[in-house]
């Protein structure tokens, strides 16, 4: 008898609870308003728009303060790994990059759903303004896990007057022309210690990108992520690496300091007139032309990177940062509101004026932006064919092994063939050990 009563009571309570919650359920912003949102990202200097424009406006509109944590990339990785692997997190907005996709995205919300839910409130967000390849940057395993905020691609920066001086009225379109221009510019720039080319040659995170645009423009590739067939020691990539290394070790038309250069030093090198040409990230164009910090301000022009044998072969890499809402986040709806605001046309446009490289096509091709930032349309053009760096979890290991190979070639210790054969065999070993093949 008692048991029956208990069961009845339980059922009664259960249904009462259900009714209660359905009565309490309200559409969309049912979550109570927090007083702050926690944003964890890296410490790149392009966050100014988020810090100084979007966050204050967001606070004015909603009364919610946004609390930013800026960490260097490795610190960010450590923090995200620690927090997201646990149960529940205090982070509301995560800034993440492509290489985190494998391990991060299972902890992120499905942003297609979030977009759909928000569509009625933000009709002019225009998700199609983001190219499919760019949307792919924030997608892994079929799930959209963020909204791309900053997209950088490798383009060709050159000092127009210097090239014209050595007879190039338009930028080099093939490797052969590039070599010619580099040698000529080095000779012309010898009195002022200026070389033809700059490289990101330090054995660090920039090295692969430094080589990647050369490799892809010669038709080379890393590997096939589905079959694990390795292409990096095939002729196109080997030729590209040999060309890349020879410019430094044989023809001496690359700044020798490049062996210690990563992102920052390349920027400084351009600002200090150390080289006439460089293949590096698109938004660096603004930094090279920054009259407050650059000795070469106003002298730069841009084009897509030279192709191996013809301009049509020109290919490059792209990557960047996306903003996403983690699954364990406590204020998901408000966090997504912030992301939508930051990624809206209006604020992304503002961000470009504050050193960001927004991925929206409409902004990159906006006449006012084109006039101000000559690299924007070039970036847009390059992005149409740019290839995303591999994002398999094993790529991190493979990329480290690749760096060793490239470094050996740049030091003149090995030929490209020998170095890349070694890289390929290292990759085979890693793939086998990970049980992927």
């Amino acid at each position: 008898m008692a048991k029956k009563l208990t069961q009845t009571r339980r059922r009664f309570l259960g249904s009462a609870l259900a009714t209660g919650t359905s009565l309490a359920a309200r559409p969309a912003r049912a979550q109570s308003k927090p007083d702050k949102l926690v944003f964890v990202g890296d410490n790149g200097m392009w966050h100014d728009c988020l810090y100084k424009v979007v966050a204050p406006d967001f606070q004015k509109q909603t009364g919610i303060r946004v609390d930013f944590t800026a960490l260097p990339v490795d610190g960010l990785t450590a923090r995200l790994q620690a927090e997201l692997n646990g149960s529940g997190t205090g982070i509301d907005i995560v800034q993440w990059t492509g290489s985190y996709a494998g391990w991060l995205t299972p902890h992120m919300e499905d942003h297609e759903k979030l977009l759909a839910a928000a569509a009625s409130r933000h009709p002019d967000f225009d998700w199609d303004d983001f190219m499919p390849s760019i949307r792919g940057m924030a997608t892994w395993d079929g799930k959209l896990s963020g909204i791309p905020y900053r997209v950088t691609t490798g383009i060709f920066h050159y000092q127009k007057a210097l090239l014209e001086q050595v007879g190039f009225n338009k930028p080099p379109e093939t490797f052969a022309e590039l070599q010619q221009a580099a040698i000529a510019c080095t000779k012309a720039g010898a009195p002022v210690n200026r070389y033809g080319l700059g490289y990101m040659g330090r054995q660090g995170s920039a090295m692969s990108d430094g080589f990647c645009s050369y490799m892809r423009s010669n038709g080379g590739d890393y590997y096939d992520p589905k079959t694990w067939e390795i292409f990096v020691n095939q002729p196109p990539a080997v030729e590209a690496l040999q060309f890349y290394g020879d410019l430094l070790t044989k023809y001496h038309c690359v700044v020798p300091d490049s062996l210690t250069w990563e992102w920052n030093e390349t920027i400084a090198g351009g600002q200090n007139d150390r080289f006439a040409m460089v293949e590096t990230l698109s938004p660096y164009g603004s930094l090279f032309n920054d009259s407050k910090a650059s000795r070469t301000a106003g002298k730069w022009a841009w084009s897509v990177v030279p192709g191996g044998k013809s301009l049509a072969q020109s290919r490059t890499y792209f990557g960047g940062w996306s903003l996403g809402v983690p699954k364990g986040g406590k204020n998901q709806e408000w966090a997504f509101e912030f992301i939508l605001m930051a990624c809206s046309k209006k604020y992304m446009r503002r961000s470009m004026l504050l050193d960001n490289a927004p991925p929206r096509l409409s902004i990159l091709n906006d006449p006012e932006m084109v006039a101000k930032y000559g690299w924007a349309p070039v970036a847009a053009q390059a992005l149409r064919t740019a290839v995303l760096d591999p994002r398999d979890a094993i790529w991190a290991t493979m990329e480290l092994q690749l760096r060793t190979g490239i470094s050996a070639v740049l030091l003149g210790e090995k030929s490209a063939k020998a170095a890349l054969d070694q890289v390929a065999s290292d990759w085979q070993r890693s793939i086998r050990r990970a049980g992927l093949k």
Partner: protein
Amino acid sequence: MRRRPIRHALKRRLFAAGIYAALLGMAAAFLFPLLWVLGLSFKTRLQVYAVPPLFVWKPTLENYIAVLRNGDFVQAFVNSLVIASGAVLLSLCIGVPTAYAMARFPFRGRSFLFFTLLVMRMLPPIAVLIPMYVLFSRLGLSTTRFSVVLAYTTFSLPLVVWIMRGIFEELPRELEESAWVDGASRYAAFGRVALPLIRPALVAATILCLQLAWNDFLFAAVLTDNATKTLPVLMAAYSGSDTGVDWGGMTASGILVVIPVIVFSFLAQRHLVAGLSAGAVKG
């Protein structure tokens, strides 16, 4: 031996001059990078990258203003101060007695404890970074300053015990034994007799613990949030990822961060060199 006093005085003065010269050279070599950082903190980005490097330039205060205007700087400074002093004090308060007990009283498990502490210290901290984070968040301590104090203390403790145990072992027992005979307890013997005698070593241990707690980045980055972050975490914002090092910000904050420790070291080194006075040894 007062033969030829003048030549003797001259030799002594030459010796002193030689020492001073060597000291100046050493100080110059050791201080030069700091002085260079000091100089960088007063340069604009263009001046930093000038070729050839500028030794004379028009200084600017913009870097310091930018750093101090950053609202978080003062808070981070306070956090660093609290955490560093907490870690150092805790390490000394519980480490020094342990070292004393190990040196003076053979108890069961003494060697084992000592050995374990050493071995723990040999594990690269990076291995326990994420497990420690998991532990603290389970205890509800994540993002608190206390968790960072605990973490730094566990790094300093083996150090303190190790150094101080060796010091205590070398200390002659007579003084303490006479104190015991006079009726003092072990605690009193420790606190009033042994402790004052090892002041230089205490200061040395303090400086070494402080160095660790003041300058660590990785653990602070993972275990704190914006409100509790320490200076190294704040400074990391200046070292740029793919958009360039903010030399002005980094060097200006670097100078502001190192000044307190220099002041502390200057005050402390006086105690570092207080030796055993003859009176105590004669007993």
